[in-house]
């Protein structure tokens, strides 16, 4: 199975000569196709910086990031814009749905930005909304939807372009536990049935327990790696809690 994402010895420094902060300090890892990877770490560990670098929003100081055989650290800004548009799908903590548009239009927008043909758009939206069970809310505006529905619409928007890699930044951060579970169930389904590759950043152990593999980051380095293997989610969750305790994360972050 080939790698969708290869991160090779990346470093990210902030500040100038006298006062350097290493936000990322020599991190390397691979993500295979159809993998569901979680990244955990306490506040200030560098996980958001890592996500920003992978999502081409920020640039690395040294090292290479290769997504779908393209080295994004060498791309020019215009090419980056196109790359981000065509190869990546984003799911954000605060949904980032446009409040003036219906769910349908929000999803359609991701496609129209790519200049897709009008004829394909409707079919693509129907397909993805079926997967995520949001067919009923397609004609509703965000303010008429629940948080869970909003996040699933946002996920549909990320998925509809069939990106190589879906980046989810604290997707359950603004959801109650029931909606979180529903969303994560649909992530699992997408991952299993449609072989979507998902990279999810979270500091919530429950959310992380849905992943196949978890990288723990502390002070800009990979501190630990957990692989779920054949564990049940409950067993995996307990293992995660152990590592988190070791990391010294806040109790609030764990529960």
């Amino acid at each position: 199975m080939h790698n969708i994402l290869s991160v090779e010895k990346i470093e990210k420094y902030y500040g100038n000569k006298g006062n350097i902060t290493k936000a990322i300090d020599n991190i390397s890892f691979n993500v295979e196709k159809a993998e569901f990877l979680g990244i955990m770490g306490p506040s200030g560990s560098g996980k958001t910086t890592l996500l920003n670098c992978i999502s081409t929003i920020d640039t690395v100081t040294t090292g290479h990031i290769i997504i779908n055989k393209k080295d994004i650290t060498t791309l020019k800004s215009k090419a980056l814009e196109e790359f981000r548009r065509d190869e990546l799908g984003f799911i954000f903590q605060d949904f980032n749905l446009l409040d003036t548009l219906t769910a349908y239009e929000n999803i359609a927008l991701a496609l129209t930005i790519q200049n897709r043909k009008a004829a394909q758009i409707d079919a693509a939206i129907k397909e993805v909304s079926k997967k995520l069970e949001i067919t009923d809310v397609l004609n509703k505006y965000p303010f008429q939807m629940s948080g869970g529905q909003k996040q699933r619409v946002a996920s549909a928007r990320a998925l509809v372009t069939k990106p190589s890699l879906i980046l989810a930044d604290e997707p359950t951060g603004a959801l109650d536990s029931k909606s979180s579970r529903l969303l994560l169930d649909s992530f699992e389904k997408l991952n299993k049935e449609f072989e979507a590759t998902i990279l999810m950043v979270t500091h919530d152990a429950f959310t992380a327990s849905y992943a196949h593999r978890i990288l723990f980051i502390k002070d800009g380095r990979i501190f630990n790696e957990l692989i779920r293997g054949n564990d049940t989610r409950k067993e995996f969750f307990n293992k995660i809690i152990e590592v988190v305790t070791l990391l010294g994360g806040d109790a609030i972050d764990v529960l």
Partner: protein
Amino acid sequence: MFYKMALNNVKRSFKDYSIYFLTLTFAVCIFYSFNSIEAQTSVLEISKSTKSYMVTLNKLIAGTSVFVSFILGGLIIYANNFLVKKRKKEFGIYMTLGMSKGKISRILIMETFLIGLLSLIVGILLGIIVSQGLSVITAKLLVVDMDKYKFIISVSAIIKSSLYFGIIFFLVMIFNQVKTYKYKLIDMLNAAKKNEDIKLKNPIISIFVFLLSVAALTSAYSMVLKFGLDLSNSLFLLAGVLGVIGTLLCFFSLSSFLIYIVQRSKKIYFKNLNIFVLRQINNKITTNFLSMSAICIMLFLTITLLFTMFSYKGSIDKTLKGNTSFDASAKLDSNIEGKKIKNIKESLDKVNFKFESYEKHAFFTEYKLKVSLSDLLNKYSSKEEQKELESSYTDGLISGVKISEYNSTRQLLGLKPMDLKDNEVLVVSNYEDFNNAFHKFMKNENSVVIENKTYRIKNEVPIKENIISSKSSFEFLYFIIPDNFKGELKLYSSCFNVMFQGDNHEKSEEKFANLFTQLEEYRNEKENFMLIYGNTLEQLYGMAYGSSAIIVFLGIYLGIVFLISSAAVLALQQLSEASDSLERYKSLKKIGASEKMINKAILVQNLIYFMVPLGLAIIHSIVGISIANKMLATTNKNIMGSSSLMIGLVLIVIYGGYFYATYVGFKSIVKNNN
């Protein structure tokens, strides 16, 4: 400390509030310029007759300025309201830091004062420059030489502008006070998070409402087109009300209707950010349909005012055109019974007047023939037109002039003499353009019956040059008759025309002006009573240009004020929209829209927002202008052509300028926050 804060706030927000500042400055500039016309004209060498018109103009401008200051005051308070709303959060932070509301409002007062002072100074400086241009226009309108050009600063206009705007700024300060005391801290801190209510509407209803508005507008148009500008007619009022209702309904339903239509066409709907643009526009136009309608009506007034005032000027110019061939003319009314003097030559002798050799002149006698205008046109005019003829005093016996005298008058103008057989007449008139029936008459008839004798009309098209330069346009139909005309000739008036030759133009001008004043005295005498109408060319121009200057100045003044007000309101609404929608643009960026795409979306959005009220206003104006033109009876394409180019340019520069400033401001707001 507070002064420093206020100063810094002004400096910092200068870029954000450029539209506010621009509007204030423009307002002051316009206000100063028009109020300084009095000073501008005082240096121009204008004739006495024109001067009286300028006095009227200044009075009218002073009156209009009061009205204008209400509009501008409203506009400034509106703009200020937007800015204060935008800064709610900032004030909220001040308050959490422990600043009292009193202190916040003191900062606001300071800021208003600073911005007001600055815009007043800049506006007046700009106004001083603009008013120099205005005096060139004045000179052009009054057809005065600009040799003695002087740079004029009108102190009274400066004082007046400062006073009026001082009061406006004072009102703004009070308004701000009231506002800041009314705000709650929690609302202030959360101000940025609040979104506009999204109005949901049934597309079927919006289609229905839109069709209703179209129906209302078309019926209003057809009513006005049918009945014309008749204020006494209750249908005219009804048409006005229908027009306003139609406009309101149109803006209320337009965007929902548009979305409904565009959604049918997937190709447009699913292209780039069109979905987003459409929704943004929909949101905005529907919420602001009231102000949109008001802006549309203001733009309509602006366009109609600007175009019709030039048409009015055009119609005056045209009236003058056929009437002003000679440098001076005079006419003695010989029709008054019991008066001795029947020939104008005698009148001139009476005041010992001698023509100089360079004052080429010709006398002629005007007779009344035994045929009236309505006799001639009976066949060709409708009842209404006949009524109009009677009411406008144009009807009556037709004047006749003998060919030999006519030829000597022609000679003055350097035209070749004409031959006329005993059974022929010539028609001299520029009446044709004003009267349809006469036009038909000339086209269809080639003979005319006077006292049972038929005369052939020698010319197919009337000679448009009149045979006397006169203020009145009542009698511009003359038949040139053979010298040995057999019918009855009733002596009507005795006239002369003069052309000045050589370099003594000014001297002669003055000489004749004096002569006419002198001759006018005889109107009050019993013994030597003479009723003489005389005028030099410049006196004629003075009258015509003076009155058209009044119309044109008031038209430009109100037109520009309306234009600036509507453009500024649109600009402010769009800019506040920009900060309200920041989150949306951030989301767009995050889901992969490129900067180019976003900029294009902003451009389209602003373009639509500015064009929608203008578009409807233009449609309104086409109807309005066509009615006004009908009333002014100008169909002269040349006048319309050249002035519409100029007006179009002014519209584009001001409106387009606001549009561009809004677009740039919008872009920078979005960009700075990404």
